[in-house]
């Protein structure tokens, strides 16, 4: 594989950049693989990469029905954080933060990881107490957390509404300075390029249509480009999880819902943090191009539409304007949506299943982008060793039966109602 470096950039400049290698190949599916990963999103690509890199398993295919990076990995608002209270979520995410910090070097691909810090705003004394508790839990797990008072928040984000007579005055906030953003497409492409270079077949425009299960064991997968024999399958299809689960006669604690996001026209640099509104569901950051990147609530009902409706967007942006009134002057550039695998406690599932050779990776809700490296790493371990790693032991499928829910936000079983 050609290394991306300043020297290669200069060298290729002499031939007008016509001779760069393709970043990944376009192979036809083989008849048989050791492992098939379904879904060429961030998690599928990362899983294949770590299977090859950490476990030496390279006879692997990633099967993607569209093009890699066309799903949620290319639709999210790129917030990366580990500001969780529960140990299972905190330790998993913080392990991921470490991988994020090394990712550009590790993949030889600039993922533009920008640890600019995230501030969750508090709008009451009670909320400050809750944040103090969460911050303390984070620090006990070795994660950086700083409780900010109103004045300190103002120093960070002076453009927010700090007037006295607002409905939700800013009391303070909880900040994780090491949190941030990254370029989502680069994450998908970086993992794809490295996985390909180690021998993984990235097969695009190929839809998985069924499974071959014999005596409770995976024996193969049916695709729109023919049948493939395989003993181990990793399912990484995010919002399409229920569709494939149905073909396996599985009913999962997952519902598919739609989440929208939008960007404004680009403006001069004004906001150098990620900020979330504490009295509703709204978050914002500014992209390198200057656009304000914003999102919030789900549309609120089961949806596979991959595009949203206006009422939710209107609701979300009303919160945004309440928090930062200058937003009302901006024009909207684009809005879009992605279909989300919403789990019933708001936490993901990375586990084996009752079918031998079938491994499940789903339930990512609002936070699957930041989980990409840790999810790929632990899922590769789970598939290669046929047992979960201690980092994803809490993300079991049977926690819903045993009562060991990971209910981070106290939203209970209908995380999409909030």
């Amino acid at each position, binding site marked *: 594989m050609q290394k991306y470096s300043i020297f290669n950039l200069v060298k290729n400049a002499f031939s007008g950049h016509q001779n760069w290698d393709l970043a990944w190949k376009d192979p036809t599916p083989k008849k048989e693989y050791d492992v098939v990963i379904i879904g060429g999103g961030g998690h599928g690509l990362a899983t294949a990469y770590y299977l090859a890199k950490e476990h030496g398993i390279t006879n692997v295919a990633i099967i993607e029905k569209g093009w890699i990076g066309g799903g949620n990995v290319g639709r999210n608002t790129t917030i990366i954080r580990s500001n969780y209270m529960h140990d299972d979520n905190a330790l998993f995410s913080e392990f991921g933060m470490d991988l994020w910090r090394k990712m550009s070097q590790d993949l030889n691909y600039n993922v533009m990881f920008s640890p600019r810090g995230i501030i969750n705003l508090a709008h009451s004394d009670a909320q400050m107490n809750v944040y103090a508790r969460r911050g303390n839990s984070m620090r006990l797990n070795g994660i950086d957390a700083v409780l900010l008072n109103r004045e300190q928040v103002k120093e960070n984000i002076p453009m927010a509404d700090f007037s006295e007579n607002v409905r939700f005055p800013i009391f303070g906030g909880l900040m994780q300075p090491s949190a941030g953003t990254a370029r989502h497409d680069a994450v998908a492409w970086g993992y794809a390029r490295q996985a390909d270079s180690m021998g993984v077949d990235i097969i695009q425009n190929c839809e998985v249509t069924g499974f071959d299960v014999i005596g409770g064991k995976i024996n193969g997968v049916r695709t729109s480009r023919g049948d493939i024999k395989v003993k181990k399958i990793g399912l990484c299809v995010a919002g399409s999880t229920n569709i494939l689960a149905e073909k396996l006669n599985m009913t999962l604690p997952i*519902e598919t819902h739609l989440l929208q996001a939008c960007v404004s026209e680009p403006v001069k640099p004004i906001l150098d943090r990620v900020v979330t509104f504490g009295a509703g569901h709204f978050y914002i950051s500014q992209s390198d191009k200057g656009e304000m990147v914003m999102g919030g609530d789900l549309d609120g009902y089961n949806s596979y539409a991959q595009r949203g409706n206006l009422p939710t967007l209107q609701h979300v942006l009303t919160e945004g304007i309440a928090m930062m009134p200058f937003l009302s002057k901006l024009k909207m550039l684009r809005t879009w949506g992605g279909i989300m695998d919403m789990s019933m406690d708001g936490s993901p599932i990375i586990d084996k299943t009752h079918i031998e050779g079938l491994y499940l990776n789903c339930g990512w809700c609002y936070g699957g982008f930041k989980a990409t490296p840790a999810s790929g790493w632990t899922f590769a371990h789970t598939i290669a060793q046929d047992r979960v790693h201690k980092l994803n032991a809490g993300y079991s499928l049977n926690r819903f039966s045993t009562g060991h829910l990971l209910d981070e936000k106290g939203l209970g079983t209908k995380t999409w109602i909030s």
Partner: protein
Amino acid sequence: MRSQNEFSYGGDATVKRPELDKEISDQDWDNFVYNRKSLRGKHWELWQHLSGCRQWIKVERDTATHEIFNTLKANEEIS
């Protein structure tokens, strides 16, 4: 025609609570509380006319196109 804003979602309308006077397995409870088919296509679901008459209704809607095929009162059985 009423605005979508007036309605609030209540989830899959085909989910039934297990009969309480019978032996109920853990699996039955899981299916009632957590597990959902989340169909792509026609889906029977509960909606409440929250900012209106506050009635609960059942709606058969396509989860990919949002087309609505059928409505029932909450206490009417899906045939």
